[in-house]
């Protein structure tokens, strides 16, 4: 009994530790005074100003667009790679998997610098041919797709290992085309892995700072790089308001998703 109480207290303390800064930011977003040290009364003015702040809204647009595009492209590339790698011979499989792991295991700063050197050299080479190329939205997108790929491959892989291949072969025997058999038999089975790869990618892209910092060039600010550039002048409280909205929106969505598996297991039983 005592042990159980201690475990509970410990769990609560860790959760408090993880969520204390988030709570702080939420409180600050309702703070009437501009400084983060003093409480000046409850106010919604930062939420109003947020709607008028075009710099922040543009950065938000960039962030979301890059997150969606990079997650979609990484999911397509990563899923097809996972299927191909799954059917390779042991040796080439392990070589491919170590390449897959590089962006995840390597330090972000090293990945960022490597990209920067590549893109600047590419720009120099292309300018000889007369093509203008510089870092911006496109290079940020390439960077995000690359660091998202391992998350997709690693979430799809375990699903492929559980896959029953005879089902796919049976579909072929019964006259389905390869594409038909894939979309109607294989894809539904690996879908949970594909989805979690997509969600992880989206989250990683949204939260990234380091790689974006090195490849964004002069334009294409995301929320993270905008915050970093505001560090000296002090962060605008509108930013707290925006992150509170984003956090609460995702909280609602995740609660909704988390409630669903129980429904699903119920329908499974019914079947």
């Amino acid at each position, binding site marked *: 009994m005592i042990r159980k109480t201690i475990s509970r207290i*410990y769990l609560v303390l860790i959760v408090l530790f993880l969520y204390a800064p988030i709570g702080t930011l939420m409180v600050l977003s309702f703070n009437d005074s501009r400084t983060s040290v003093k409480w000046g009364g409850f106010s919604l003015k930062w939420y109003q100003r947020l709607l008028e702040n075009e710099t922040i809204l543009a950065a938000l647009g960039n962030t979301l667009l890059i997150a969606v595009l990079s997650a979609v492209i990484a999911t397509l590339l990563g899923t097809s790679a996972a299927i191909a790698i799954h059917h390779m011979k042991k040796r080439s499989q392990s070589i491919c998997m170590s390449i897959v792991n590089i962006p995840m295991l390597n330090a972000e700063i090293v990945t960022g610098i490597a*990209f920067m050197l590549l893109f600047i050299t590419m720009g120099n080479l292309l300018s000889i041919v007369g093509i203008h190329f510089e870092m911006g939205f496109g290079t940020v997108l390439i960077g995000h797709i690359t660091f998202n790929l391992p998350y997709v491959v690693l979430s799809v892989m375990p699903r492929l290992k559980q896959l029953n291949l005879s089902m796919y072969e049976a579909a072929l025997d019964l006259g389905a085309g390869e594409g038909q058999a894939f979309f109607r038999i294989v894809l539904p089975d690996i879908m949970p892995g594909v989805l979690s790869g997509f969600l992880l990618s989206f989250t990683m892209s949204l939260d990234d700072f380091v790689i974006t910092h090195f490849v964004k060039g002069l334009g294409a600010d995301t929320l993270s790089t905008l915050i970093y550039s505001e560090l000296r002048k002090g962060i605008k409280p509108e930013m707290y308001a925006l992150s509170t909205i*984003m956090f609460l929106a995702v909280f609602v969505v995740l609660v909704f998703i988390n409630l669903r598996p129980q429904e699903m297991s119920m329908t499974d039983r019914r079947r």
Partner: protein
Amino acid sequence: MYRKSLSYPYLIWAAAFIIIPLLFIAYYGLTDKSGAFTLANLAAIATAEHSKALFLSLGLSFLSTAICLLLAYPLALILSNSRFGRSGFIIFLFILPMWMNFLLRTLAWVVLLDTNGVLDSLFQMLGLPRFKIINTPAAIVFGMVYDFLPFMILPIYNVISKIDVNVINAARDLGANSFQTLYKVIFPLSLPGIISGITMVFIPSLTTFVISTLLGGGKILLIGNVIEQEFMKGTSWHVGSGLSLVLMLFIILSMILSSKYDHGEGNVL
């Protein structure tokens, strides 16, 4: 489905954006401005300023990895024994904070840890000694533990929750008490998770420049700050690349260590 060609788009992508960029670092790190081969950029780590930053980084990241392990292991044990463990609750709990921007989350600790900030006032109210850690290495360790703790918890939790209950029951049947079961059965079986957790906390801590900038007040330079400045303040890409190569030695070392123990069970996903 068996078509090899499915892997071609990925392999082309990986060659262009994973392998080639790393070769660029190797090229810049091993040449000087005229393009001649040199080891001077690697040797740059030996200068007083750089080696001080490297040793400080190594020290702080060892410390934060150790603290993360001490905090995460009991938590993983508790979670794997509780009913929350069965649902997707855990992932939910640790993925959710990531939706609050990483920089803002870390910056919020400035408000909490500041002199006369939230924690300091709380300490004063309780009559405890003053709480002054902002802009010190201690604050940086605090930030590292906060930011990377989930990366220690998840792999350890994954491994522990997959341990066969029968193995634990057998140990108890054979007369082991709960401490002996933990020490002789659960701990050795959870080693892959621990190793993978250690690499996932140690490498980002060793190479960070953001946490030291935010919580160290800009005066404490880690090796990550040194490299970032070589690139973004335009000092020298060659020296920056050379220092990155030195840093990669540590990364490769810990990767080799982790692949020796980890056979996939310790994976976060």
